[in-house]
């Protein structure tokens, strides 16, 4: 599929946010690359879920072999460009760089990875991996998120006919419509998908498996099927007044901000409910977009929050307020139904203490308390099972499910991690299938 980027509106609210880690210039990249020690059995590599050979690609940047650096990256991770920009490197590769132990600034691995891969994605560049002749084998993926893209991309490069079935009109899953725009814009994600598409990946957009097409049909038509459906809708609080305008799921709000809301949209007083990374993302996005006030409301204390400390710290600097130990009990609306406040009670170990209710005035409440699981999809494939948390059961190393023809990976098996984990799952499943005789 070519020119996916043109599927997007030009006027999108997300374009108002500045790039927090801009592209390195050549000199900057070289200087940073020279700093890498070229460690052996490097800890940074082990901390990357896709095990990119980091010292090798960095030394290639230093030697001026930028295309070679990109090849080293993409060989292991076909979404190496997105990952360069969205990975929480502080807790992944860079977090384990030997410089940390030494008390010095770790290598900016993500930014170097972006420098190499962004150059390779430029129009007019020769393909890094010329597609191999078709081998007559056919595979399909459910969903066109990072996990499915990695699965299909790696197999397409080996000569498979690989088709992705995606319920939405744009591919990329949360990587396209969930990532904070100061890390990656929807258009950047789509540009990379176009590049992966050149390996010969096919798309069926607007097709929901289980509704428009059955799982059985895929099993009949394809040698193997990969389930990469991610997670479902934002969870709800279950408090009075919740349904109605002014209360929105965080992921849904981000999707609209990235794909639909116009750049001119103004934000009033925002309350974000939750303490995870999605909550911090929405809060930071609102603060940076100029909301009048942004407060994160969390039922326990700061120390209990599951979001990354470095992200929260950044949010605090950008003006995000933190309301700890506050449990939402109702959404307060005026006679016309317009939201006026979120009613909270004091939290003790996360539970509301009766009699402590008070109102926090606001114009918008974004709920970031988790996403549901898409349990229905399992029923489409005999033998595919769910665990007690609703995650698809699959071998974490190979992606194999209870049905020998079906693989699964990404958020739908791990309950929600990072893009890079989804890519690793998709790639590992592809490698497992490749190792099987055709």
């Amino acid at each position, binding site marked *: 599929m070519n020119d996916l980027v043109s599927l997007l509106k030009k006027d999108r609210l997300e374009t108002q946010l500045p790039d927090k880690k801009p592209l390195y210039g050549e000199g900057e990249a070289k200087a940073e690359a020279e700093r890498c020690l070229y460690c052996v059995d490097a800890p940074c590599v082990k901390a990357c879920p896709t095990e990119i050979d980091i010292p090798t690609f960095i030394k*290639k940047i230093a*030697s001026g072999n930028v*295309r070679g650096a990109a090849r080293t990256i993409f060989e292991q991770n076909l979404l190496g460009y997105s990952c360069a920009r969205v990975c929480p490197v502080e807790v992944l590769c860079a977090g384990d760089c030997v410089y940390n132990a030494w008390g010095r600034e770790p290598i900016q691995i993500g930014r170097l990875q972006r420098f190499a891969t962004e150059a390779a994605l430029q129009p007019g560049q*020769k393909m890094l991996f010329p597609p191999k002749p078709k081998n007559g084998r056919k595979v399909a993926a459910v969903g066109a998120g990072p996990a499915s893209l990695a699965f299909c991309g790696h197999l397409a490069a080996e000569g498979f006919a690989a088709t992705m079935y995606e319920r939405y009109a744009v591919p990329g899953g949360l990587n396209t419509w969930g990532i904070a725009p100061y890390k990656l814009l929807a258009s950047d994600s789509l540009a990379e998908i176009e590049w992966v598409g050149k390996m010969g990946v096919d798309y069926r957009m607007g097709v929901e498996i289980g509704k428009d097409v059955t799982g059985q049909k895929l099993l009949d038509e394809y040698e193997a099927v990969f389930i990469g459906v991610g997670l479902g809708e934002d969870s709800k609080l279950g408090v009075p007044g919740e349904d109605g305008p002014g209360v929105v799921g965080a992921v849904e709000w981000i999707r609209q901000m990235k794909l639909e809301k116009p750049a001119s949209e103004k934000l009033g007083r925002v309350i974000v409910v939750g303490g995870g990374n999605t909550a911090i993302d929405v809060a930071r996005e609102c603060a940076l977009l100029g909301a009048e006030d942004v407060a994160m409301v969390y039922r326990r204390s700061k120390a209990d929050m599951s979001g990354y400390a470095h992200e929260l710290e950044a949010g605090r600097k950008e003006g995000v307020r933190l309301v700890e130990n506050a449990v939402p009990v109702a959404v307060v609306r005026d006679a016309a139904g317009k939201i006026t406040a979120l009613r909270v009670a004091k939290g003790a170990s996360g539970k509301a203490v009766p009699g402590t209710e008070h109102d926090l005035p606001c114009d918008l409440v974004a709920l970031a308390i988790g996403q549901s699981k898409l349990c229905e999809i399992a029923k489409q494939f005999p033998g595919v099972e769910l665990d007690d948390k609703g995650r698809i059961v699959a071998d974490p190393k190979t992606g194999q499910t209870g049905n020998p023809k079906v693989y699964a990976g990404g958020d739908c098996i791990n309950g929600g991690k990072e893009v890079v984990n989804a890519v690793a799952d998709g790639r590992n499943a592809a490698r497992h299938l490749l190792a099987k005789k055709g």
Partner: protein
Amino acid sequence: MADLSIDFCGIKSPNPFWLASAPPANSGEQVMRAFDAGWGGAVWKTLGDPIMNVSSRFAAVDLGTYKMMGLNNIELITDRPLSVNLKEIYEVKKRYPKNVVIASLMTETRDDWRVLIKKCEDAGADGLELNFGCPHGMCERGMGSSVGQEPKLLTEITSWTKEFAKTPVLVKLTPNTGDIVEAGQAAVAGGCDGISLINTIKSIIGIDLDAMVPYPKVGKQSTNGGYCGPAVKPIALHMVAALARDAQAGKVPISGIGGVSNWRDAAEFIALGSTSVQVCTAVMHYGYRIVEDMIDGLSEFLDAKGMKSVSELRGKAVGAYEEWGDLDLGHKIVAKIDKDKCIGCQLCVTACHDGAHQCIFTGAEDRDRPPQAHHPGKAKAPTPLPLGKHAGDRVPWVDEPECVGCNLCQLVCPVSGCISMEEVPGGKRETWNDRVREGRDKLPGGIHEG
């Protein structure tokens, strides 16, 4: 993908990357691991009568955070028995027939050379390299650089070896000589099939100021060593080029050595006439794995330049290496500062004022030129004064009429791409040699008053 294979005076190698005769090519186990990593060939650690080594042996110069910018060693030739080395050479060639193994040799009498050559060729070596370069220890015993520094001896010993050898003979030259071309011609006169250069440069790398002993220390003593690594590359490049463009010495293929650390260094040696390159220090620093980027980077480069094979690159820059007297005196460039890249450190200002031609200034006022200036009047400040994105009014400006285009400011500027040197069009081509020929300039030498 471009073809990286080479033919070095009949020795075929899958790529131009060879290990130099040194610790990385000390044993069969190492050489085989190197071939697995991708090295095309290896010049075995110099064989001869096994010697005894000292401890310690190496010392280095670091530059900023970069370790081992230059390496100095006082190690001698192999300390392992000849029979063991020969057995291993045999084993390596048996298992890796497509890779090149060259035996580096150093011995004394004519008969010693005969015996050593026969043994190495019987073991399966693809060629021989005569080590006339080692500048420490061995030269005191009348070998190594003491041969390389003596053209007559060099020719004579080379011609002995040519009598005995069935495989190609490469002569490895020492840079510790006044004129490398003389040494190269002497080797060719002796009938060598190829030349390798450079071996290490005689050096003292530093002093332990507490112990008052030079490095590397052997107890309370030391000795001069051989210098190599990235620091010596410019010297090596010149010597390679000097041979490549010499009618006599340039007749045989060259194996370029000295500070090669990546594909770019290798490409430079090849562009100056090398057929293969050899590497020691970079492997000692980072291991055999560096060859992956050498292969990948060189083929990417050749592809990008539309060259089908590495032989198309060979010697491409030799023609542009000319005598000073033939350079165009009419060509003029001046420094331009990109105000938005400038960070306002003003290192260029002081470099120009104290170390060049006093023509970079700051501030909005016109400035007095120094008495030694070439143009009358004041240096004119630009109006409006450039205001930089990062540096504001700290962005310096260049008094262009006075700028001689020396590059110094660009060399000291820490921000890449901030200072560019731009050509001033309209200069008339003229060389020093033209001027002398036309009587408008005197030949150099002596003081020509008036």
